[in-house]
């Protein structure tokens, strides 16, 4: 199959007809370049959108309490509702199968000190489940454990940036830091995909903080994550049931929107996935549109090329070229030019995307880039299109009687 002479003929034809080569090459390179850039920018938009929601589990439900806004069963409106430890037990007892994790939280802003370095941080009292919910990665040591909860240990797991602030280059692991005048041992550090705010948090065992601050059974808020097997509608109906049950438990009017508040990520996810779908469709549309423009371009050029070469093909036929050799010559040329030009377009396109880099972040375009596979796929589609586009006129040219081709001027 591989015939050096055959390729020499093709290379000569390409080389000696530069205008033609450049013309068709340019069309392909331009189409692939546009495809790459538009696709990359589309992906950039998507990246921005996704990053807005990164960092927390997609399955989280946030629950907190406030004052009643309606009188109910003889109780006045404006009555403060307090979530307590037994609410956690209540949720676990009634909805265990719908949960994959739960933690009560107490949030405080407290001053943390280590050897003269100090700053104010969010200190959050939690159950171990929070690590999974926040998708926090353990960088060193370990996270808060059930044993810490049982023994009310004075230990903390600190965010990566807290360690950086207070310890500089040193490791915080095993050191003691003073928070609000009380000494805690650092048992681990973590990073969080949610970004710098989430990495400036200090997590402490829930029971420890609850004992030290007030020694009551009160808690600030509850974060739970629903079972990922639930679909969006099931998750929303679960959180509706949960709100209803808690309202009843706390003597809140069913129509009171203020006292027991709940935020379900499932609702956001629904909106997000709808938006992503539209965005993906737009990107797809742009991609297909560019490809079609490229296909039409290469087709026109192939028709033109064959037309221009009719006489040459007639000469070749008179000298003994078989129809097959004519077709294969034209197609090989077309495939070679398309492949090389497609590659050049790909290089330019990705080059442009790279040079754009972070400069478009203010336009909601983050890390514009393309999957190499997608672009190679697009190039292959163009090659196939160029081949088909070249094949039809090449076949016609191969069929034309040599005498007609020779008379062509």
């Amino acid at each position, binding site marked *: 199959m591989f015939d*050096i*002479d055959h390729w*020499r*003929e093709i290379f*000569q*034809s390409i080389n*000696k*007809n530069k205008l033609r080569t450049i013309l068709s090459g340019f069309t392909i390179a331009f189409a692939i370049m546009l495809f790459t850039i538009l696709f990359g920018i589309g992906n950039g938009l998507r990246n921005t959108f996704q990053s807005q929601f990164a960092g927390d589990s997609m399955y989280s439900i946030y629950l907190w309490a406030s004052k009643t806004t309606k009188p109910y069963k003889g109780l006045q409106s404006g009555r403060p509702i307090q979530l307590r430890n037994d609410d956690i037990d209540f949720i676990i007892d009634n909805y265990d199968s719908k949960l994959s994790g739960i933690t009560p939280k107490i949030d405080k802003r407290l001053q943390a000190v280590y050897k003269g370095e100090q700053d104010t941080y969010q200190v959050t009292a939690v159950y171990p489940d929070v690590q999974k919910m926040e998708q926090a990665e353990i960088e060193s040591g370990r996270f808060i454990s059930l044993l810490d909860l049982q023994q009310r240990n004075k230990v903390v797991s600190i965010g990566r940036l807290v360690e950086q602030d207070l310890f500089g280059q040193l490791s915080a692991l095993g050191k003691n830091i003073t928070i609000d005048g009380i000494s805690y041992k650092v048992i681990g550090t973590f990073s969080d995909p949610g970004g710098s705010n989430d990495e400036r948090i200090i997590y402490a065992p829930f029971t420890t903080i609850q004992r030290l601050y007030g020694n009551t059974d009160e808690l600030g808020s509850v974060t739970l994550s629903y079972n990922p097997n639930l679909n969006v509608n099931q998750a929303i109906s679960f959180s509706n049931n949960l709100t209803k049950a808690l309202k009843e438990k706390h003597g809140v009017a069913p129509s009171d929107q203020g006292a027991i508040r709940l935020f379900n990520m499932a609702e956001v996810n629904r909106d997000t996935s709808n938006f992503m779908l539209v965005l993906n469709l737009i990107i797809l549309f742009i991609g297909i549109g560019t490809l079609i423009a490229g296909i039409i371009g290469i087709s026109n050029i192939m028709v033109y090329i064959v037309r221009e070469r009719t*006489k*040459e093909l*007639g*000469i*070749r*036929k*008179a*000298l*003994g*070229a*078989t*129809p*097959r*050799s004519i077709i294969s010559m034209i197609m090989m040329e077309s495939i070679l030019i398309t492949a090389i030009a497609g590659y050049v377009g790909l290089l330019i396109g990705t080059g442009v995307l790279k040079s754009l880099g972070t400069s478009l972040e203010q336009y909601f375009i983050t890390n514009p880039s393309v999957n190499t596979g997608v672009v190679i796929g697009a190039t292959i589609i163009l090659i196939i299109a160029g081949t088909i586009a070249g094949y039809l006129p090449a076949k016609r040219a*191969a*069929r034309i*009687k*040599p*005498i007609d081709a*020779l008379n062509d001027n």
Partner: protein
Amino acid sequence: MIEIKNLHKSYPIGKDKLHVLKGLNLSIKEGEFVSIMGSSGSGKSTLLNILGLLDEHDEGEYILNGQVIQKLNEKKAAILRNKFLGFVFQSFNLINYKTALENVSLPLYYSGVGRKERQKIAMEYLEKVELGAWANHLPSEMSGGQKQRVAIARALVTQPKVILADEPTGALDSATSSAVMQILKDINKEGMTILVITHEEDIAEQTKRIVRLKDGIIMSDELQLQNA
């Protein structure tokens, strides 16, 4: 070498048919130097195209080198053209982006001769038409006479059985015309069968046999004894 019997050819023109060749009989033996004469419309070009396997006849018989030519597919015709026939055209029909040497070696490429061998043989034939020094020039850098000599070298390079020349001097002045005719006479002397189509009396007179065509019929077929 060439046998035609009762050869007919017509072209459709709208609903009508233009009957171009009306039952030709012609026999050309090996080593002959024949000119086919006729004014335009006499059918001489059509005859040459059929003889050259560039076109198909409708009726009658055509035997080329002992082989009956009938309903050839494109591939077979291409192979026969490559093997048995060499063409010389009025407008030279060189490929403009190929050098003289590459043009001459092209038929050998289609008969599957290796590159080195091809170039060697092509060079021999270029030297035969005294254009060895022009091997690496493009057609655009050569005169009409030189181009036609390249075309003749290209026609000869596969050592065909017959050279078909269609108005080979039609685009040349009289001095270069006679030079080209001299080459044709020389290769005829070496035994090559040559068929020249022309409407110029003084060209035809240089060949050994003149066949006159008029309105698709052979009017006369005479040997030129003074050239024999």
